[in-house]
């Protein structure tokens, strides 16, 4: 006789970094179905932005996520620069690229550690955390902060890369080339880690396309998608970036957790290469177009229109859409789409057929950032909110819903209710 029962993983769970609930339907240890319910930490951050000036929103946008804080800030800034036609000096662009790569390095190192912790491999977790300290130190040296850097501003960056800092960064790159390889070998060649990660949480190439996966999750399923190559921004126009896909290294794509691990680990090396190229090609000149923030604010007050910023954050593509209204001090409308939202819809698919023991690892495998994601809840009519799994939202359905939402907004008048 086979009976299924349902247990929750989350919202607060040791294996999860942030609160999200996965209701798992189990038959013994095997997962027969899953229902993912976000909504525990919705913060209404976009609403808060409507009472702040664009400069203040930079610092608000950094607080969307602690790990990819620079990505969010830069994405917002690029959206505003897009609508206000602000230009950025070449040195500013290079420094932005450097910080982006430092952030990617630190995000991937953190994730690798947490993934090891999830499979009970505490030693590798501590090793990963120890490795991560060095890049945090460099970020602190560059920006004065370890988490929310506060380095990005309209038309450039706030701090320059001094020769001493460049030297320290080069030393850091050498440190990682030397010290990261043992960590990679410990984890990727460990039989137990291999047994826990191979063929777990498989997302096939077709499903990755169908459910709009982005970033390392999509690349681990074999898709050659990387905004740094597909639509280059900042210094990536000068520095060619090749998407890291598992088939180039293993000869075959499994689309499982080990592939996601491998993609992130190999991207660490790629980041080190990019950082080296950025430091080699760092142009002379100013690093910010207009250092006087009052002048920037005055010009932004006159700006009107919709701006769009999209960059490749460590977890996937990050989109910010900003609307400013001429004569208004504050941001009129702001929409954030974090990569976790795109990747989380494939969770129920990854769960099915795996075991309860794999569930936290599968949740963590897309490197979820629930705080980034929780900007929108889908309600299915009877007040039952969450990402609905009995019918998983497919790409077509999502596009349809987005269009419907746009039509609704247009019918009500732009930007929802007028303030």
């Amino acid at each position: 006789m086979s009976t299924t029962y349902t247990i929750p993983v989350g919202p607060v769970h040791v294996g999860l970094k942030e609160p999200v609930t996965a209701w798992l339907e189990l038959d013994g240890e095997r997962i027969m179905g899953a229902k993912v319910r976000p909504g525990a930490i919705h913060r209404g951050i976009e609403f808060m932005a409507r009472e702040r000036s664009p400069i203040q929103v930079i610092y608000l946008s950094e607080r969307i996520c602690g790990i990819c804080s620079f990505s969010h800030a830069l994405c917002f800034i690029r959206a505003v620069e897009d609508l206000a036609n602000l230009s950025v000096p070449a040195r500013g662009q290079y420094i932005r690229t450097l910080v982006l790569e430092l952030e990617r390095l630190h995000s991937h190192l953190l994730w690798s550690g947490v993934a090891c912790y999830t499979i009970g491999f505490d030693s590798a977790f501590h090793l990963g955390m120890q490795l991560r300290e060095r890049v945090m130190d460099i970020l602190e040296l560059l920006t004065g902060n370890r988490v929310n850097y506060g380095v990005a501003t309209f038309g450039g960056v706030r701090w320059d890369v001094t020769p001493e800092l460049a030297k320290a960064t080069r030393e850091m790159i050498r440190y990682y080339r030397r010290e990261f390889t043992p960590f990679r070998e410990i984890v990727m060649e460990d039989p137990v880690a291999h047994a826990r990660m191979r063929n777990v949480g498989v997302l096939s190439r077709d499903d990755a396309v169908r459910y709009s996966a982005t970033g390392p999750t999509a690349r681990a399923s074999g898709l050659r998608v990387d905004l740094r190559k597909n639509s280059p921004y900042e210094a990536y126009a000068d520095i060619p970036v090749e998407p890291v896909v598992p088939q180039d290294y293993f000869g075959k794509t499994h689309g499982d957790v080990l592939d996601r691990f491998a993609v992130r680990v190999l991207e660490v090396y790629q980041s080190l290469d990019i950082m080296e190229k950025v430091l080699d090609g760092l142009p002379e000149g100013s690093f910010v177009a207009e250092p006087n923030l009052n002048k920037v604010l005055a010009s932004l007050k006159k700006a009107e229109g919709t701006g769009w910023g999209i960059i490749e954050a460590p977890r996937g593509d990050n989109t910010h859409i900003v609307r400013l209204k001429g004569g208004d001090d504050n941001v009129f409308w702001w929409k954030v789409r974090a990569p976790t939202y795109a990747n989380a819809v494939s969770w129920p698919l990854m769960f099915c057929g795996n075991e309860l023991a794999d569930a936290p690892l599968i949740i963590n495998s897309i490197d979820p950032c629930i705080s980034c994601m929780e900007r929108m809840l889908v309600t299915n009519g009877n007040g039952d909110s969450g990402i609905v799994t009995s019918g998983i939202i497919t790409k077509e359905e999502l596009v349809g819903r987005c269009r419907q939402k746009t039509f609704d907004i247009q019918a009500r008048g732009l930007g929802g209710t007028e303030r």
Partner: protein
Amino acid sequence: MTAIFTLFLKIFAGVALMALVVVLALLFEGADRIVHAKMQRRVGPPLFQPIYDILKLMGKENIVPRRAARFFFGLAPWLTLVVSLMVFLYIPTGSFPAVLGTEGDMILVIYLLAMGGLTLALGGFASGNPIANIGAGREITLMMSYEFPLAIVISTLAWVAYRSGMPGSPFSLETFAAMSIWKVVGKIGTFGLFCLFLSLVFVVPGETGKGPMDIPEAKTEILDGLIIEYSGVNLALLKVSFALRPFAIAAFVTVLFVPVSFSSLLGVGGFIIAIFDFLFFWIKVFAIQMVFVTWMRTAFGRLKIWQASQFYIVKVAGLSIAGMLLLSIDVLVR
């Protein structure tokens, strides 16, 4: 009169030994945590941290979930502690005979070790929490997997002791403590014994729920599973049992395979030598615990339950059967 005196002496020795092993087990766990931390390039807690933890938990409220089977939920921690402690009454320490050595043998020790897992599972099932139920199910599955190689090891050792004419009862631990089994076998037999030794030490993490086999408690999967609903004194008792279980099986392995002692090396007896043997015994236990519990749990991640089961039923059982065959050949050839 003598019988009553012996009874009192035994009660006194038993109580003293139990008090000693509880303190020693907690200290060993403290050392285990420090060594584990050092291997991970951390500082780690102070040596007495497990004792502080127990003292703190003793003063906390004992919460029983509404849906729990109250009687079994409360009984399970006490039973686990008692069976974990009882193991030591049947294990000879150094040159000192076991307190109740004449009343039980290896088979009883195996039952007591298995009983510890069973009572834990009982508490898990009684708590009425689905996560604890999963943990209890995993504990039972794991136990069914490692009991098979364990049984092969024990029966083979007893058979070898019987056939090679070691003095004493073949199933008695005193027999193995008094004379090293490595001395009674030939070259093939030594190899076979080594296989049995390896099988037994692979059972250690499973038996103790540590290292790659911490599946029933798996913190990041099922939130400490079995003990999720326990708190206060109940949890303190379980923590003591968790410290005692690796200690008990390490002592068991020591008696069976590493019976080397000063008295057997020097060929002399006496109370002073016996005291040294007693200390040396705990040092050997500590070494075994460091290698097969601390090192194993540092070096490996956690397996899944079917992987652990497969490991025990296929690989470890295969190893123990190979050991058994080699020993049979050795005994039959000679």
